[in-house]
């Protein structure tokens, strides 16, 4: 319930929200947890394995119990920490992981079966009968496990990612972080101060402390006002630094819109990549629970959380609160509760020699042995140096001491070191280059320690950066010593929880040790200790201590498991912002794109490009109708296709020819001026990289064409060969792919069509010629090349004229009985001619396989030449390129067998790479790789395609089906 006069919430602003369908009212400045506690709700969730009722344990992002689903229209966010979620008008939350209502969860029967569900039980059973695992046991386990529910709907909300750079990143805005930020800001450094909470101030918001003789908040506000006024400081609230990565890169998650109703444009979250020259980890410390019997009841909370709800949110977490602690620091909670008028039932201090000055019962040498209250704590039983006791209490505030929040220092494989003084792990120096931990994160638990180490860390960071921090008077603050006697667990007949979130108890740890899972990693993996949403933040150290105890080793010898990124979980949507839908990869459009779409062409992805599949006409019911028609344009009249996606690389210099001779298997230094030559390019491992034509535009000037798919690959390859093997050659090259729109014009009437658009009619322009032309006054390049076997040209104009030329060419072609053709027709045309694409040169084929070994010049070296000669890449055992023909349909991907042999991997003779129906030949044709194929032309092979239920005979033939002599090309 609320306590008048306490807290930083805005009492004037009421916020209404719903939890499990019931409306509640809180205040601006409340988290969902504080608002629920203020409304007297204790059970907020169910545990993972035993489905025990659970309440709020902490007041921070490490919360293991109070995980809820946040509901929206058609969407929901599972596993949301109620301790982090701010309330807003209209917030709708509900509890998760129960079958039936939160109060009567049917899965809680698991709790009764707990003796049979001990650590690793599932590895030892469910093995017989075998089929039952998948059909019965596993589905049941899966349904009961898990936590919240994901919506089945696409998450269409906005998210973003962003970058930031700074001199100094300060992580955490408590006294340490504020002091570090002030120091470095005054030194003139470019500073980012990142704070996970929605309000800066860290522990000072909750602790009710005094700095420089005034309430700490006065100092906090003054510091923030100064920082906010400085142009070299960026303050980032609601921003959790989630990971430390190489070279000073940090990941951080900003909760941009989670504290308000959804908005169409406002990102829910932003994932930041912050590059910092130096960083100060001022993330404070986390209080740790005590594993006493039945320590998981709602109402049993961290002492610091009780303090935080009291001082920051003005909420009393109980009417009769008990404090159970092993250290001096936690006593403050009891004192502050009493000062605020909350009754403290008793202070239980595990240390027999601790002080007893408070105005309430103080039991020394105390331990809690049992707790009562199924749906919320009612009473506890225990003993102390004076005997046994039973206390009626509805809230137990526990403190087993503090662990520095050092997780980020482990992200680059740094191992923390054990401090016997603190009974805690502390960061190792230099674990993350450029980052130092200060304040409580480094084991300085007093406010004075925080301020002074924060200052010192900043002074050092400034010195590293060559900046001088001006003198600054350190504010005065409490400097109480941190006195603690370790207390990890209390033995008793009931289960005592370590990992609340994964339902791991102390017995599980001892059982793991008993079964030989004594390595800390084995223990973790066997018991699942520390693998839950809090990643062991609340429990790992105690679990280690118990394992150390069970194995007779010390904690340092036992070692720790590794904290890995992220510090707190990050939504896939935030990390993958920009990935959803079309924005996953850039879209590349040809200049003819709109013209093709205007004609109803389905556009298909070709790498990043979009290309027209075919151009449907009225009355055509199948894509093949359109395709056949477009093929006939080219075979009988003239067809026009946009081929601009092919890579084009302009190569110049006195060594250009020499360079081409090195990267191609064949020779280009002998290519006459104004001529084009087909070239084959190998990878250095001797297999085919790419093919294409290269034109000689001048004595020292070439234009290389690559396939669409390999354009980037080839550019990288050329850069490599140039810079590593030919750096001092006289050579410059640059991509001109985007500079030119290029159109294939093919067919018997191609020349006529060309002549109708060229400013000067074409003179003698033989096959494989290239030369400059003009179209409507625009300078263009004309190539006489063909990918169809017909008389073919490709005309290239500057891209800005591409669309106009395409529309013009198509319109003219149509008046000549032709028209545009798309990828489908292009594929048929090339197959009829036996031209290969990356369906054939798929990375496993060599020049020998495609019958081009003669193109590997014997007179010169080239990239890939030596490795292409390896025995395994040559000879009759290799699958070689052949043609296939058949009267019935067959498909690519079918496998081929010698007639009469069984169909098995061992007897396979090859496979089909490409196929089509050839309207020109009136049958089904394809390309295939067949063992010793070139010697098998004329043989009928059995083609088997289990996927398409095809089993037929196909005839092996020359891969060039159409015009094998090439007369039409040269016509």
């Amino acid at each position, binding site marked *: 319930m609320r306590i008048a006069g306490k807290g930083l919430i805005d009492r004037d602003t009421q916020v209404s929200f719903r939890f499990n369908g019931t409306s509640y009212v809180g205040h601006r400045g409340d988290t969902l947890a504080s608002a629920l506690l203020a409304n007297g709700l204790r059970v907020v969730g169910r545990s993972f394995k035993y489905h025990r009722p659970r309440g709020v344990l902490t007041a921070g992002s490490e919360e293991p119990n109070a995980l809820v689903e946040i509901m929206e229209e058609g969407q929901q966010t599972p596993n949301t920490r109620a301790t982090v979620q701010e309330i807003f008008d209209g917030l709708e939350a509900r509890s998760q992981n129960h079958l039936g209502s939160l109060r009567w969860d049917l899965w809680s029967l698991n709790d009764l079966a707990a003796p049979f569900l001990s650590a690793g039980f599932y590895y030892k059973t469910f093995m017989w009968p075998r089929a039952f695992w998948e059909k019965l046991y596993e589905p049941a386990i899966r349904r009961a496990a898990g936590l919240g529910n994901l919506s089945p709907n696409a998450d269409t909300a906005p998210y973003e990612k962003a970058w930031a750079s700074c001199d100094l990143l300060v992580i955490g805005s408590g006294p340490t972080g504020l002091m570090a930020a002030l120091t470095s800001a005054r030194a003139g450094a470019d500073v980012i101060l990142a704070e996970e909470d929605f309000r800066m101030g860290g522990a000072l918001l909750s602790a009710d402390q005094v700095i420089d003789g005034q309430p700490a908040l006065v100092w906090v506000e003054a510091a923030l006002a100064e920082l906010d006024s400085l142009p070299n400081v960026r303050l980032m609230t609601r921003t959790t630094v989630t990971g430390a990565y190489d070279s000073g890169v940090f990941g951080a998650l900003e909760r941009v819109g989670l504290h308000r109703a959804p908005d169409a444009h406002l990102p829910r979250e932003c994932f930041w990549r912050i590059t910092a020259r130096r960083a100060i980890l001022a993330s404070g410390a986390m209080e740790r629970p005590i594993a006493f019997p039945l320590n998981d009841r709602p109402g049993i909370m961290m002492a610091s959380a009780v303090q935080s709800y009291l001082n920051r949110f003005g909420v009393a977490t109980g009417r009769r609160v008990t404090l159970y602690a092993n250290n001096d620091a936690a006593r403050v909670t009891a004192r502050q509760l009493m000062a605020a008028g909350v009754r403290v039932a008793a202070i239980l201090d595990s240390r027999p020699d601790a002080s007893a000055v408070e105005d309430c019962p103080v039991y020394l040498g105390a331990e809690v042995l049992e707790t009562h209250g199924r749906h919320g704590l009612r009473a506890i039983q225990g003993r102390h140096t004076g005997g046994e006791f039973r206390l009626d209490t509805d809230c137990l505030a526990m403190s087993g001491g503090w662990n520095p929040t050092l997780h980020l220092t482990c992200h680059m494989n740094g191992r923390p070191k054990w401090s016997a003084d603190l009974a805690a792990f502390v960061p190792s120096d230099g674990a993350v280059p450029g980052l130092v931990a200060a304040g409580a994160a480094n084991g300085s638990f007093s406010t004075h320690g925080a301020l002074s180490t924060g200052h010192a860390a900043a002074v050092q960071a400034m010195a590293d950066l060559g900046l001088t921090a001006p003198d600054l008077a350190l504010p005065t603050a409490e400097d109480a010593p941190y006195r603690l006697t370790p207390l990890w667990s209390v033995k008793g007949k009931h289960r005592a929880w370590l990992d609340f979130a994964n339902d791991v108890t102390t017995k599980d740890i001892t059982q793991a040790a008993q079964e030989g899972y004594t390595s800390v990693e084995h223990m973790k993996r066997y018991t699942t200790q520390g693998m839950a949403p809090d990643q062991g933040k609340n429990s790992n150290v105690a679990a280690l201590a118990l394992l150390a105890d069970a194995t007779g080793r010390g904690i340092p010898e036992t070692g720790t498991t590794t904290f890995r990124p992220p510090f707190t979980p990050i939504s896939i949507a935030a990390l993958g912002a920009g990935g959803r839908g079309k924005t996953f990869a850039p879209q590349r459009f040809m200049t003819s794109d709109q013209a093709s779409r205007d004609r109803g062409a389905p556009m298909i992805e070709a790498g990043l490009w979009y290309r027209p599949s075919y151009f449907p006409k009225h009355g055509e019911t199948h894509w093949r109708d359109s395709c056949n028609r477009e093929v006939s344009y080219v075979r009988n009249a003239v067809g026009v296709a946009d081929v601009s996606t092919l890579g084009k690389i302009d190569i110049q210099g006195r060594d250009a020819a020499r360079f081409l001779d090195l990267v191609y298997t064949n020779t280009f230094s002998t290519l006459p001026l104004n001529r084009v030559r087909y070239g084959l390019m190998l990878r250095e491992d001797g297999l085919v990289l790419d093919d294409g034509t290269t034109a000689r535009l001048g004595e020292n000037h070439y234009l290389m064409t690559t396939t669409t798919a390999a354009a980037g690959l080839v550019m990288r390859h050329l850069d490599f060969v*140039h810079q*590593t093997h030919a750096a001092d050659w006289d050579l410059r090259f640059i991509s001109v792919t985007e500079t030119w729109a290029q159109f294939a014009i093919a067919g018997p009437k191609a020349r006529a069509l060309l002549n109708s658009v060229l400013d000067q009619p074409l003179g003698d322009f033989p096959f494989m010629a290239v030369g400059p032309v003009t179209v409507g006054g625009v300078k263009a390049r004309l190539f006489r090349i063909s990918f169809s076997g017909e008389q073919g040209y490709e005309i290239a104009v500057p891209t800005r004229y591409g669309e106009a030329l395409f529309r013009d060419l198509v319109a003219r072609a149509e008046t000549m009985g032709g028209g545009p053709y798309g990828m489908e027709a292009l594929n048929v045309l090339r197959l009829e001619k036996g031209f290969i694409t990356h369906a054939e040169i798929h990375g496993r084929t060599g020049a020998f396989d495609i019958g081009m070994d003669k193109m590997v010049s014997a007179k010169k070296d080239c990239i890939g030449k*030596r490795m292409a000669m390896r025995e395994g890449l040559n000879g009759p055992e290799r699958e070689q390129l052949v043609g296939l023909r058949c009267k019935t349909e067959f498909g690519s991907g079918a496998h081929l067998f010698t007639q009469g042999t069984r169909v098995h991997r061992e007897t396979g003779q090859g496979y089909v790479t490409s196929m089509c129906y050839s309207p020109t030949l009136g049958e089904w044709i394809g390309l295939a790789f067949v063992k010793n194929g070139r010697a098998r032309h004329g043989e009928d092979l059995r083609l088997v395609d289990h996927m398409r239920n095809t089993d037929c005979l196909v005839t092996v033939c020359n891969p060039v089906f159409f015009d094998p002599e090439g007369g039409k090309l040269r016509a």
Partner: protein
Amino acid sequence: MRLTCPLCGPRDRREFYYYGAEDYLHRPAPDAPIEAWDDHLHLRTNLAGVIKDLWYHEGGCASWLLVTRNTITHEVLSVERVADRKGASA
């Protein structure tokens, strides 16, 4: 992870394409024995520690880079342009 391109300055790792060990720089003579080529293309010292390897500033200036770095810590010790090495040419 960031690399400092000698031309472009410190840049995020995502601008770079990784190729492999510096062995790729030492192309054997065309008639060298197959063992030399096997060494060049396939066999790797694969050191856990400081190594040199090849990166390409594909999202930047298109320089091929020889990077000296530690494969255990990811510390980058130096970056040089392959084309600027002494005696770089074939």
